[in-house]
């Protein structure tokens, strides 16, 4: 699983949950500032990724995950450790 696939998965989760256009997304896209995602929506995105990659991400690791790139890093870290 390379990083591009992971970033793509985050894009897909955002499209599905936040109803945004994939074309508008980049790794720098910020969930709250750019996509107007509330904390509940961010949790939904993370849960979608947990399901897709069969992971469990602890609550406290979500702190400071502000951008798509950061979310991809979080997932990549867990996949590497798995």
């Amino acid at each position: 699983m390379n990083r591009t696939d992971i970033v793509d998965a985050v894009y897909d989760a955002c499209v599905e949950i936040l109803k945004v256009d994939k074309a508008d997304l980049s790794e720098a896209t910020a969930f709250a500032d750019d996509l107007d995602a509330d904390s509940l929506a961010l949790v939904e995105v993370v849960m979608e990724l947990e399901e897709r990659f069969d992971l469990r991400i602890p609550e406290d690791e979500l702190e400071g995950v502000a951008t798509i790139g950061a979310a991809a890093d979080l997932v990549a870290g867990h996949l590497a450790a798995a």
Partner: protein
Amino acid sequence: MSPDTTPTASAADTAEGRTAPADTAAERVALVSGGSRGIGAAVARGLAAAGHPVAVGYRSGEADARALAASIEAGGGRALAVAVDVTDAESVDAAVTAVEEGLGPVSVLVNNAGVTADGLFLRMDEARWRAPLDTNLDGTYRLTHRVVRGMVRRRWGRIVSLSSVVALTGSAGQANYAAAKAALVGFSRSLARELAERSITVNVVAPGPIATDMLAAVGEDRTGALADAVPVGRLGRPEEVAAAVTYLVGDGAAYVTGAVLPVDGGLGLGH
């Protein structure tokens, strides 16, 4: 997991899939814990009459739960009896999965399962203290936590928890039960704030003394005294509590959340 967005897909296709929002009661599956008798059974009947498919949760009342489900089906509704011990997380998970597979994703949850373990506080050991907390409060946590994700994804839900008039008035001999019932208010109101933007309302119904097995257990003298203390002058009926739950679950109550609705004949008025 790809989203299912075809307009004709039913909500039962995928338990947590993103389908079109359920628009009618028939698509809003209700799960009532402690549904085999008393208030729970009346709630199950009331929701079925309002058009909801109903899962009747039971712990030991299997025969009653099955009979209730059968009578709902005989009347043209959809129902199933499901074993659920709310003090056991695995049981809760298995039960909700069974409901999802048998009726569809849970959109309405009525946290009704409850026990008392009365006694003067002076002699209340830790086991007796914990019993109502584990069933009434922690059980509500387990069941709610298991279904809330689906409600969030489908952007609609109703969570109604059964508290009690004693939650706010207090009751000698019921420090544990009253504590558990009061806790449901803080819990429900917090959840109401978190989930409001997903069209999920979270409310509490606070019954007074209702004519059920749980109340009969305290003895005739005490229930007589209770009835006299109630401004309306009698015990309540399970159907009267069920009517409040049915109201809160309906579209008409979409603007009601974090409410504590007393059905107590005025016993607790002033809170």
